[in-house]
């Protein structure tokens, strides 16, 4: 009986945390909305410099998109494994997700480096300020996601899979899918629209 009450208490707490995390994701989405809005407003404010069509390399951004979409898929498989308490498979799939995320991040860093190397920095024009802020904020989110994933994997190794770890992984996977969705919008609005 006491066991029952305790697990009921825990289930309620899980439900609340999940709900709270959804609200947090919505606040984060609103932050991205503001960044998208500033990007839309400043898109033509290139201050006489080259425009998006001249600077972007679509294959690079497309490869990044594929990497991130695949990582969302592997993250999903990792969650299925975690819910079945398969420790090794969980670690394997989240490990692959981590590597894909890292590859995506590397591509982004390469792109940023090239732009800066050619003299197109965030100081060059209002449009580039908004570009670096929007894409960079997404990149920062990816970094925090990767950090979170790494810490979770360390704790899976140390403590094994338990209900509280699965709760953390659930939130992490929500966060990762959320970043995927935001990236689809970035890819469409920032990169694809440049070539329309």
């Amino acid at each position: 009986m006491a066991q029952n009450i305790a697990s009921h208490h825990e289930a309620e707490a899980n439900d609340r945390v999940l709900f709270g995390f959804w609200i947090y994701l919505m606040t984060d989405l609103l932050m991205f909305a503001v960044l998208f809005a500033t990007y839309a407003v400043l898109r033509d404010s290139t201050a006489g410099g080259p425009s998006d069509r001249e600077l972007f390399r679509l294959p690079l951004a497309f490869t990044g998109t594929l990497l991130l979409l695949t990582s969302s898929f592997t993250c999903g498989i990792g969650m299925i494994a975690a819910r079945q308490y398969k420790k090794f498979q969980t670690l394997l799939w989240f490990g692959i997700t981590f590597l894909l995320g890292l590859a995506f991040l590397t591509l982004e860093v390469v792109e940023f480096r090239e732009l800066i190397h050619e003299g197109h920095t965030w100081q060059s024009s209002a449009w580039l300020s908004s570009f670096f802020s929007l894409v960079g904020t997404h990149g920062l989110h990816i970094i925090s996601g990767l950090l979170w994933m790494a810490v979770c994997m360390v704790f899976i190794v140390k403590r094994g899979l338990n209900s509280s770890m699965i709760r953390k992984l659930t939130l992490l996977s929500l966060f990762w899918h959320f970043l995927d969705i935001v990236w689809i919008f970035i890819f469409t609005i920032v990169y694809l629209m440049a070539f329309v």
Partner: protein
Amino acid sequence: MKEFLLGKLSLKALPHEWSTIGATMTFLVGALVLVLLITRLKRWKWLWNEWLTSVDPKKIGIMYFIVATFMLLRGGLDAVMIWLQQALSSGASNGYLSAAHFQQIFTAHGNIMVFFVAMGFMFGLINYVVPLQIGARDLASPFLNTLGFWLYVAGAIMINLFFVLGGEYAATGWLAVAPLSGTQFSPGVGVDYLIWSLQISGIGTTLGGINFVMTILKMRAPGMTLRKMPMFTWASLCSMVMVVTVFPILTVTLFLLFFDRYLGMHFFTTDLGGNAMMYTNLIWMWGHPEVYILMLPAFGIYSEVVSTFSGKRIASYTSQVLGMIGVSTLALLVWLHHFFTMGAGANVNAFFGIMTTVIAIPTAVLVFNWIATMYKGRIRFKTPMLWFLGFISVFSFGGLAGLLLAVPPANFQLHNSLFLVAHFHTMVIGGVLFGIFAGITYWFPKVTGFKLNERIGRYAFWGWIIGFCMAFIPLYVLGFMGATRRLDHYDSSTGWQPLFILALIGGIIISVAVVLQIIQIIASVIQKRQLADTTGDPWYGRTLEWATPSPPPFYNFATIPTVTARDAYWEIKRHGGLPKPKYEDIHMPKNTAYGIYVSAFAFLAGFAFVWHINWLAIVGIIGAIVCVIIRTFDEHVEYTITADEVEKIESKMRKKNLAADGQGEEMGLWDFVKIVITFIADIFRKKLWRRI
């Protein structure tokens, strides 16, 4: 090397003006006295364990009150300085403040009053009252709550830090409008202090908002459906939903301004394609809903007060709830009325003008419901009710002024004039601040176990009403006469000076009223046995918070009550009172210091960004992240109190309540003066200071 270690910080940043030296000395002496007192009384451990690291929303609520009270006095001092300058500075006289100093004062006044006074008091009240009203024992996430509070404290310290280091605050107006707030026109650290103070406390507010939406939607007592929720809880829910909707906008906007200043970006600059009007749009998209975020909990307080002191349930519950939801929804669609003069075009202005006028409809629904609640009620004119009556007269008046401002052609005349200043002070003082006072007086016995002195409270109320009218009605007139806001000097031929002097006298009367409020609290503490609330229900309340003893035990309810109707406690009382309690094991969250640690690191990072100390910023950010990780992976955050222990605590509380008497005459002002004189005489006669 020095630049790497200290950034822009140097000896020149230390105080060297009368105002900064004075303020720094006050802080130092105050801190020293506090430290000595706590050490002397051996209270450090108690302070840390019982208060600072507490996750009990009631204790966090009280800590919010304490910080907000200090900030109210601090912001009030700014107000008096503004009044004095404007009364003096006419014609040949330039007053006692320089233009630059004056600009910093009104900027700080606005920031402090909105972010640290109004928000602080509202979060304090919501923390204390909402869990009790919905029959919950704690919040959905106790950790987020303590973190939010300590981020608020970090912001409050940051906004005062410029006295000690830097010596200048932003001179940009409370919203730091661009491009004035860019490095081109504001190269100093003032704007950076503004950015990081608001950023840190704003993130705390967002976390608090998420937490309360979770709590209100997920943790209500069994039987309390949404349509049975008390009005204050409804109002808080509306307000917190608005917080999570608009505070992210503030966070990003401040970040973009920071990017402009720190990384040399061009979002809002005058060159390379920057768009300053975008800043104005973004900041008001947050800024307008923000005033409703403050207003809505006040609406909730008034609803509770008017229904309790009229002895009736609130008139037309459904329309009252819809009114609040309507206000909070429409509030998101009116931001452009702050800058009709920007030149967005007639159609855009017309849309926002109409939306602004439409918002008067749900607001009027609320006002009429309050009046209808009083109709045929048995009204008791206790001080909370007086604050409500003061509010409803002042608020209607200010609201009509707002309708006038909502009309774009009229707005072109009144924009940036003192008419506007008078309007929003009527709303924020008459609406929000009176609501806070009503709420504090109403729930004071719940928090402390004794009521506030009514007689001195009435004097304070009349002082506020009279002082308020004298201070702000002249500003409406001055606005029509053409006086713009933020004037540090005006020509004597304008003939404005008598009106400014009248406003100053009003300000002095308000200050007297504030002193009376402080006396009211001290007098009540002296007489706390006579004013004791032995029943837990001193006003014949209607909602669940009055079902607990005053002050409530840390777990709020030994048995969670079951709710069957609106005005849950009123119904319980009608049907023979609370059932005999059946004690059960209670799970409560453990105290945690991680809220303090994370906020301290966030503060360090903010400070480092103000002074361009990159390594310290990295230390601050990494420190905060590590603390959050440690806290997240801590599995032992709860403990259990057994049913036996609960029973012991409950019976002990009952005995203590029987010991208090709750009878006797309240002291008046004259009695208070006599007590103070006797006290001082005692000190001299018995040489009491030797004992300390």
